[in-house]
């Protein structure tokens, strides 16, 4: 939201040309940043994917790989929300082993990422949604560059205390559905304290997608990671060029 600012017309000021970004463009990256979104069943992973699609629609070339048990309703959900062209979504079947497909045997997911790039051209960001699993499921570093672990307050405020690799080691922990906290008697202060104890300096974001349908703070975190990714893996300049 934009703060209301009173302009003092006596002070001379200039605006940058509208529509022109005053910053030097970031270098393009050699390949898309791949961000895994994992977490227990129903915690809001698909809702987060949809929210991020809303945020990045006009900003990034986006692809989505889902390991969710994928129905046409899911596709319709993303389509109806007007957030993503179904051509940008690939579904991976996991044979009842959601954690295997993202951690131990990642070939089908890597194929899906490759197919998206083949079909759509270069992408900036690929979101990989894991199938809903338990607190021990995490992504292989061979599949994603960064991972977000989504839990919700409806699972009880004990979840961060239980730990598990998702809660303790994910690059970003999202505690979702804060709007429900009063209804389920979850104490956000307890969750915050336990998350800090488990995660040290790793970031945690409390959010409600119902209240913030663009998941703006998660989107900001991804923008920041993307900037690092572009600097760390720029497109190689062919030899002989300045």
């Amino acid at each position, binding site marked *: 939201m934009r703060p209301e600012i009173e302009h003092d017309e006596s002070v001379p000021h200039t605006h940058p040309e509208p529509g022109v970004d005053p910053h030097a463009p970031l270098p393009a990256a050699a390949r898309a940043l791949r961000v895994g979104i994992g977490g227990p069943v129903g915690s809001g992973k698909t809702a987060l994917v949809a929210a991020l699609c809303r945020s990045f629609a006009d900003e990034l070339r986006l692809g989505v790989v889902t390991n969710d*048990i994928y*129905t046409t309703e899911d596709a319709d959900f993303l389509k109806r929300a007007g957030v993503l062209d179904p051509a940008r979504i690939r579904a991976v*079947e*996991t044979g009842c082993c959601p954690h*295997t497909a993202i951690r131990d*045997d990642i*070939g*089908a997911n890597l*194929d899906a990422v490759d197919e998206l790039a083949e079909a759509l051209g270069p992408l900036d960001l690929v979101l990989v949604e894991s199938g809903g699993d338990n607190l021990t499921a995490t992504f292989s570093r061979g599949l994603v560059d960064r991972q977000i672990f989504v839990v919700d307050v409806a699972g009880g405020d004990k979840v961060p205390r239980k730990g598990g690799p998702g809660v303790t080691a994910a690059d970003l922990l999202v505690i979702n559905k804060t709007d429900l906290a009063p209804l389920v008697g979850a104490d956000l202060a307890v969750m915050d304290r336990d998350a800090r104890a488990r995660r040290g300096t790793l970031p945690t974001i409390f959010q409600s997608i119902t209240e913030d349908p663009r998941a703006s703070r998660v989107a900001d975190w991804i923008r920041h990671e993307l900037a690092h990714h572009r600097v760390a893996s720029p497109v190689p300049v062919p030899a002989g060029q300045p």
Partner: protein
Amino acid sequence: MTAPTMLLLLADGRFPAGAHAHSSGLEAAVAAGRVTDLATLGDYLRGRLATAGLVAAAFAAAACRAAEPSHPRPSPSGEADQSRLRPPPNGDGDRARLTPSPGGDAGQVRRAALARLDAELDARTASLAQRSVSRRQGKALLRAGREIWPAASFDELPAAPGGPHQPLVLGLVGAAAGLDPAQVATVAAHATVTGSASAAVRLLGLDPYQVQALLVRLAAACDATAAQAARAAEEPPERLPAANAPLADIHAEAHATWEVRLFAS
């Protein structure tokens, strides 16, 4: 037996080539009410072994043979003819054939042999869904093979759009791992029964000890299929086995149209 650990590594269901996502027709057979318990699972696995298992094992062994033409043929007694393992007395004809040389004669011969095997296997796989699944599984195994054996000449596989057929890749991976065609056939036959059996444990909630006991009872049949496949692989590609199960083809076609699937095949 040479390379026993390598054989075990390739046969291990944890080898990262996507096997966990495939029930190889079992999900459809369960939905059709044809596999409901241990007894019907046993029938299903025997049927798979005699059809898709035999064909896959024969093509995998033949691809392995194409990759390493110096492999000794088993003599009628079943013992390997060791004389074929020795280098020729003078000259390095065999060595030249084994050295990857993309433009070389040997490379061209291997390419042609693999392309023929690919076409023959395509012709034996009536269902489009099964052809594409075989190619997807080949692609997955190829990804693992390239990462694990970067020096192997996987580029000699035909460049089909959906990927090369899985048994062909298995043959080359086996050759890269130092397995012989008979061992490669064993890996293929073993995967035929273990893949669907593990899917059955997940889909039907069968007792895992009972399912393992069933696999133990099937072990001899599995070995016999592998041996039959390895013998068949010495024949020219058009003479390789073409055993088929129309109902499995029909199930595969139906499965591919389901809205919600847990398994990719």
